[in-house]
């Protein structure tokens, strides 16, 4: 819902000769306050419930168990590797979308954004059809190089990169569009090639945007569940990331699931704190 504009009224005011005095009402109308508070409670209560139900007495042993560390380590390593993949492939892609005017650019941008809105499990099925041992690309990987990706840690990284890359591309592209292009042009007039200008001028200019995009992508990769379990399966230490461990633990040992969830919650809060000055300084 767009806020009402005061244009017609402003026009009417000028006709009447100057704005009318209106009493400024402070205070929040009840019809807004009630849904607002409900919405706030809806978002916060589940997290509080997680803290309330945490088995604090057994938490230390839960968190020091080998399984938890195995899953956490795999999660951190694969999310970081996925972010690296996103950076290597995503930043140039974002640059292409922001700086090169080619036909069909809008369509390409839409396609790049698609994994962002695609249900992750669909992404997993799509990856399986493409890169599985029997997939349209995967069968050649298997035949020529003997590489099979499903059920491997590399498969986890691919699944995570697939869902996380759009975050990075969109974030970096937005920064590029907002960046002042005159610096690049100045570099060009001073004889720098386009690549040199990108490396020495553009990259430092958009570094904060890249960092924010990378953190977002990393957080998204860390929480990836659907695509991972579909494409990479579930094997402790190899493909069982934290979200998979949480899901399977919930079926047999809810306390362990809560403890694992708490770790992920802490990581998420840390990410948010890291992005604080970009996202929460609007107030």
């Amino acid at each position: 819902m767009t806020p009402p504009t005061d244009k017609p009224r402003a026009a009417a005011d000028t006709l009447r000769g100057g704005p009318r005095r209106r009493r400024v009402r402070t205070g929040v109308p009840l019809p807004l306050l009630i849904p607002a508070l409900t919405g706030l409670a809806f978002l916060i209560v589940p997290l509080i419930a997680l803290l309330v139900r945490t088995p604090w007495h057994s938490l230390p042993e839960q968190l020091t168990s080998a399984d938890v560390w195995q899953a956490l380590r795999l999660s951190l390593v694969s999310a970081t590797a996925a972010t690296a993949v996103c950076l290597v492939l995503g930043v140039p892609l974002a640059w292409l979308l922001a700086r090169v005017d080619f036909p069909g650019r809008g369509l390409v941008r839409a396609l790049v954004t698609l994994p962002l809105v695609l249900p992750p499990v669909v992404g997993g099925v799509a990856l399986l059809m493409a890169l599985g041992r029997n997939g349209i690309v995967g069968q050649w990987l298997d035949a020529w190089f003997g590489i099979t990706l499903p059920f491997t840690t590399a498969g986890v990284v691919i699944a995570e990169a697939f869902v996380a890359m759009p975050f990075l591309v969109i974030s970096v592209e937005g920064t590029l569009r907002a960046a002042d292009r005159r610096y690049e042009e100045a570099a060009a007039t001073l004889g720098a090639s386009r690549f040199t200008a990108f490396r020495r001028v553009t990259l430092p200019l958009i570094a904060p945007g890249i960092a924010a995009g990378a953190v977002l992508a990393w957080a998204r990769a860390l929480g990836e569940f659907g695509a991972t379990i579909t494409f990479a399966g579930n094997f402790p230490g190899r493909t069982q990331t934290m979200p998979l461990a949480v899901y399977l633990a919930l079926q047999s040992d809810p306390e362990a699931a809560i403890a694992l969830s708490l770790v992920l919650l802490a990581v998420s809060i840390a990410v948010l704190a890291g992005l604080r000055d970009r996202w929460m300084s609007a107030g």
Partner: protein
Amino acid sequence: MTRTVRRIRRPLQGAAVGAVALLALSACSSSGPDSSAKPDSSGSGKLSGEVTVFAAASLKESFTTLGKQFEKEHPGTKVTFSFGGSDSLAASITGGAPADVFASASPRTMKIVTDAGDASGAPVTFVRNELEIATLPGNPAKISSLKDLTEAGLKVVLCDKEVPCGAAAQKALDASGLKLTPVSYEQDVKAALTKVELKEADAAVVYKTDVRAAGDKVEGVPFPESADAVNDYPITLLKDAPNTEAAEAFIALVRSAEGQEVLSGAGFLKP
């Protein structure tokens, strides 16, 4: 429309949107006893309303058939199924999911529900199921025994140990003293089978009934150790069943000669 009216309507719209959101949220959580019609007081035994059945993934084909039969025999009823790993089903029942009937693939998972006091009466075993190896069509890896699965270079998937088919597979492996490292522990038996159907894995240890249900997409290899790990399937009425009468009738159908015929046809063993 005058300006004053418009100014009043906006907050109301906001309130309406808020109310709709609230309703939508509460609708998600309502267990909806109103969704199942009450049995009529005349006691004529005419059933109606919805029966919600939580059943192990391996029962998918046979129960779907039985559900259709039930609806045909009792017009006005509707059988809704939720198939999945017995463990996650048990967890959602103890977590308060609204269901009438629970059919699980192992006494252990049924025990989770009875221990939580969510079952009504004692569960009964209605079928048994045996394990089989599912291989690619034509069995290119020439798998003929459980031991063949331990060969290097074979991609084998098992069910997760928390799920009955995984526990049974582990039991069979232990009984034969074999160590098998799969490439994945899947969350339920159908997920394990799918990996073979998609040719992503070379073999999976699943139920005989799943191999049969998959038709020619996979090939079944029986193995003698499966006798050490035959799974009993218990079924029970749930205590908070919204539609007790229809639920009891559905359980009766499953246990009747007619129901057993469908189940045997799917490859289940008699209890």
